[in-house]
C-alpha cells in the first residue's frame, strides 16, 4: 500500500469512541480512496437500509477522505461524502485544504464519522493523539470567526504541550458556518474562509451531527511511495505543463463571468431566463480593480488560479473572498442580475461567512427572484424584501434568512427542489418548472442550449451527482470531461484543474504507478475500476429516500427551462431538443452498461463482482 498512510480513523460521535481501522489492499486497489472508497464504505454499511436512512439523522455516515495521490499530484484536496441531503444518493464532494496533507502526515488516510453528538464538538488531531473537544463557544460563529478561534486554540494547545518545539505553524481545519449548524441543505464544509465542499450539502450533515470542525496537525512526512524518484520526476513534469498555461494562471476562471455569457451564451442570467449578456461592467478587467494578489492557491499547486479580492471602499467595504471564481461570479452575479465586481464580491464573501454554497444558494436565490418577478412570491412572503434583479441588499438579506432559517428562508434552506415542491403546494401553482436542478442538486453555471460550452445533453441528465458541473456524464466514456475521469480525480484525491491539458492528463497514469505501484491503464479504469464506483453510485441514487426518490429514466431529464428558446444574443432561439436528449440518454446508458431505464444491468454488475448490488436492484427493475 504505497501512497497511503495505511490507516483510517473512525469516530463515533454518539459514544465518543475513537478507533483506528484498515482496509485491505484489494479494496484500496478497487476503490482507490476519496469518492470511490466513500461509495464502498457507504454501500457496505448502509446499502441494505439505504431508503430509510435520513441524511440528516444519526444513521448517516460522514466521510472525510484523502487518496493515494493527495500531496503527490499537484493541487491537494480532501473528499467529503456520505448520504447526500440534496440528492439522497452519494456525492464525492472535494475541496482544497491543507487539512488533507495534515491528515496524511498525521498517519491517517481519512476519517469516518458515525452517530451524532448531543452537544457541539470539534475533533482535534495531533498525529495519533485524537480528541473530541467542546465547541459550544464556537457554535453560532461565522466562517472567519470560527477559523480564527480554531487556529488560536490549536496553536495554544500545541505550544502548551510541546514547550521546547518553538513556534507551531497553524493547524489546518475544515468547519461549518451557521448554515451548516442550522442544517440547511445548501451548507458547505468549508476551509480557509473561501474553500467549499459544496455539492452534496455535507455542511448540513456535519450540523446534524453537531460536529463544528475538524482541526489537524500532522508532523510526519507524506507516506512512502513505490518509486520516489519517478514520482517526483513525473509530478514535476505535470507542474511544468501547468506553468505553460499562462492565460489560465493569469486570470484563473475570473474572465468567465463576462466571457461565458457574452462569448458562449451558457451563463445563468436571472435564473437561467437567459444565458447571454453583454455587461461589460462585469468584465475581468473590471474585476482586476478588486484583486490584491496576482496568484493564490493551496498546497502543491502550480497554477494558483485564485485572485484574492477585497472591497476597500464604498458601502460594501470590508468584503474579502477568492477571486471570485466563475461559478460564484455567475450564480452570485449574473443569475441575480448583479453585474458589478463589488456587488458580486460582497455576495460571495457573505455566502462564505454564512457557510453556504455559492452555487446552490445562487440557484435558489435566482429561483426566488423569478417567483418575485412573476408575482408568485410577494413582499409579504419575503418579510418586506424588494427582491428585484440586481438588488444586492435584498439578496444578501435573503441569504441571511436562509442561513438562519428565518421566515421564507426556512423553506429556501431546503434547496431549490424541495422549496419548489413546498411553494407549489403553498401557492397552488406549479413552480417546479422554474427550478434549474438535476436530482435535487442545482445545476452548475454551464448551460447546454447554445451548444458552445463543455457539457452536452447527457451531462446533467445522466450524472450520478446530478447538477454537479465537476462530474458531468460525457460520451465517449473516456472523453476529457467524462464522469469516469471525475471519479479518478475525486478518488485520487486531487484538483482536476491541473489536468486540463493533454500533456498533464497523459502523465497521470505513470504518476499513479509511481506512487502506488499499481499499473492502472486507461482500459482498466474506464472499463472496470471506475465503472464499479459509478454503478454503486447510480444504484444508491435510484434507491434514494426517505424524503426524495428519483424515478429511473423519467427523472433523467433536463430542467424544463432548457427546453425554452434562448431569448437573446447570438444564439437566440436555440433550445434543447427532447428527442436529442432521449437519444443521447440511451446512448449513454448503453455505453456504461445500464439498461433502457438507466438501471445498471445484471451482467455488467456480475462481471464486476457486484452481485450484491445486482440483487439489491431486482425489486427496482421489477417495479418499472
Amino acid at each position, binding site marked *: 500500500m504505497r501512497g497511503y498512510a495505511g490507516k483510517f480513523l473512525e469516530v463515533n460521535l454518539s459514544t465518543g469512541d475513537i478507533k483506528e481501522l484498515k482496509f485491505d489492499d484489494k479494496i484500496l486497489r478497487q476503490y482507490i480512496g476519496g469518492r470511490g472508497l466513500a461509495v464502498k464504505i457507504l454501500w457496505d454499511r448502509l446499502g441494505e437500509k439505504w431508503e430509510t436512512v435520513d441524511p440528516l439523522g444519526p444513521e448517516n455516515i460522514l466521510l472525510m477522505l484523502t487518496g493515494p495521490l493527495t500531496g503527490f499530484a499537484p493541487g491537494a484536496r480532501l473528499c467529503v461524502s456520505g448520504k447526500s441531503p440534496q440528492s439522497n444518493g452519494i456525492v464525492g464532494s472535494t475541496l482544497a485544504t491543507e487539512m488533507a496533507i495534515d491528515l496524511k502526515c498525521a498517519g491517517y488516510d481519512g476519517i469516518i464519522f458515525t452517530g451524532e453528538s448531543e452537544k457541539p464538538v470539534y475533533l482535534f488531531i495531533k498525529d495519533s493523539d485524537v480528541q473530541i473537544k467542546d465547541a459550544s463557544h464556537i457554535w453560532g460563529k461565522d466562517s472567519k470567526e470560527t477559523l480564527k478561534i480554531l487556529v488560536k486554540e490549536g496553536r495554544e494547545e500545541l505550544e502548551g504541550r510541546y514547550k521546547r518545539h518553538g*513556534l507551531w*505553524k497553524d493547524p489546518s481545519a475544515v468547519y461549518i458556518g451557521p448554515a451548516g449548524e442550522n442544517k440547511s441543505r445548501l451548507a458547505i464544509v468549508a476551509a480557509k474562509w473561501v474553500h467549499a465542499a459544496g455539492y452534496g450539502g455535507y455542511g448540513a450533515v456535519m450540523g446534524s451531527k453537531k460536529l463544528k470542525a475538524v482541526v489537524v496537525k500532522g508532523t510526519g*512526512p507524506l507516506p512512502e511511495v513505490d518509486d520516489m524518484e519517478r514520482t517526483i520526476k513525473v509530478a514535476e513534469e505535470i507542474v511544468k505543463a501547468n506553468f505553460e498555461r499562462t492565460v489560465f494562471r493569469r486570470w484563473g476562471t475570473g474572465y468567465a463571468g463576462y466571457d461565458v455569457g457574452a462569448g458562449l451564451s451558457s451563463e445563468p442570467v436571472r435564473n437561467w431566463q437567459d444565458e447571454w449578456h453583454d455587461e461589460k461592467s462585469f468584465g475581468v478587467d473590471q474585476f482586476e480593480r478588486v484583486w490584491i494578489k496576482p496568484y*493564490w492557491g493551496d498546497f502543491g499547486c502550480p497554477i494558483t488560479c485564485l485572485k484574492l479580492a477585497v472591497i476597500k471602499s464604498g458601502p460594501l467595504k470590508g468584503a474579502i473572498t477568492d477571486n471570485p471564481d466563475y461559478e460564484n461570479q455567475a450564480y452570485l452575479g449574473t443569475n441575480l442580475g448583479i453585474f458589478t465586481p463589488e456587488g458580486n464580491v460582497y455576495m460571495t464573501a457573505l455566502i462564505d461567512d454564512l457557510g453556504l454554497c455559492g452555487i446552490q444558494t445562487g440557484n435558489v436565490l435566482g429561483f426566488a427572484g423569478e417567483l418575485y418577478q412573476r408575482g408568485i412570491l410577494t413582499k409579504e412572503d419575503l418579510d418586506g424584501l424588494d427582491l428585484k434583479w440586481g438588488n444586492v441588499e435584498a439578496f444578501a438579506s435573503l441569504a441571511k434568512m436562509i442561513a438562519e432559517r428565518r421566515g421564507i428562508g426556512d423553506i429556501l434552506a431546503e434547496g431549490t427542489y424541495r422549496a419548489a415542491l413546498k411553494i407549489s403546494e403553498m401557492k397552488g401553482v406549479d413552480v417546479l418548472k422554474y427550478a434549474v436542478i438535476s436530482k435535487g442538486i442545482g445545476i452548475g453555471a454551464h448551460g447546454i442550449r447554445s451548444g458552445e460550452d463543455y457539457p452536452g445533453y447527457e451531462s446533467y441528465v445522466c450524472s450520478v451527482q446530478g447538477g454537479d458541473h465537476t462530474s458531468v456524464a460525457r460520451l465517449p466514456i473516456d472523453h476529457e470531461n467524462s464522469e469516469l475521469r471525475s471519479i479518478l480525480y475525486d478518488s485520487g484525491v486531487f484538483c482536476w484543474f491541473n489536468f486540463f491539458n493533454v500533456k498533464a492528463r497523459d502523465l497521470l497514469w505513470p504518476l499513479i504507478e509511481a506512487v502506488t505501484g499499481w499499473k492502472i491503464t486507461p482500459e482498466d479504469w474506464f472499463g472496470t475500476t471506475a465503472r464499479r464506483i459509478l454503478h454503486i453510485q447510480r444504484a444508491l441514487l435510484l434507491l434514494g429516500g426517505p424524503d426524495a426518490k428519483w424515478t429511473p429514466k423519467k427523472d433523467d431529464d433536463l430542467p424544463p427551462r432548457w427546453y425554452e428558446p434562448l431569448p437573446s444574443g447570438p444564439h437566440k432561439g436555440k433550445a434543447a431538443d427532447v428527442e436529442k436528449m432521449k437519444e443521447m440518454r440511451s446512448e449513454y446508458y448503453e455505453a456504461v452498461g445500464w439498461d433502457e431505464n438507466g438501471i445498471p444491468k445484471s451482467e455488467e454488475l456480475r462481471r464486476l463482482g457486484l452481485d450484491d448490488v445486482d440483487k439489491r436492484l431486482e425489486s427496482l427493475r421489477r417495479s418499472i
Partner: protein
Amino acid sequence: MSETEHIWIARDYSRCSGCRRCEIVCSLHHEGRIWPEASRIRVFMLVPGVEIPHLCVQCSDYPCVDACPVNALSINKQTEAVIVDKEKCTACGECIEACPGKIPYIHPAENYAVICDLCGGKPKCVEACEEGGWNALEIMKREDIPTLDLYAKTPEEITRNVIRKLYGEEWEEAV
C-alpha cells in the same frame, strides 16, 4: 562565489501564493521526503490570504549561534548560513529563545534544531518560487542589504504588517 558576495533571500510576503512548493522542494532536498513540518522554510497562514514564508535571515550578529550552550551552531564561511551540528545539538531550544523572529524549531522526528542552510548557496525554495513566477522569494547580495536584521520577526509581527497592506488597518487586531 567569492567571500565578499554572499547571498541573501529577500521576501515579498504579499506576493506569496500559499502554494507551499517551497516547503515541498526544501523537505525533498533535506529529508528526501515531502515533509512540510520538517521544511527549513515554513509558510504560516494565521489568516487566510496572508501567507508568511518564515526562514532564517542570517542576522549580522547571529544571536542563535552565541546562545547555543553546546556549540552546535556555526557559521559557514562560504555562505554565512547557520549550520546545525545534529550530533552536538541537544534540542534545548536556546537558539529559538535567542532568535528575534523565533525562526528555528525542533525537528518533528529527531532531536535537533532546524535552521535554513541556504542549500549550500543555491536555495531550492527560491528556485521553485521563481520558476512559478511568484517571486515572493528572491536572491540578493547580502552585502548590499543595510539592515537585514530587521527581517528577523515572528510570523505574528509580519502578519500584522502584511494584513494592513492587504486587507486594511482594521484587520490588524485579527492577529
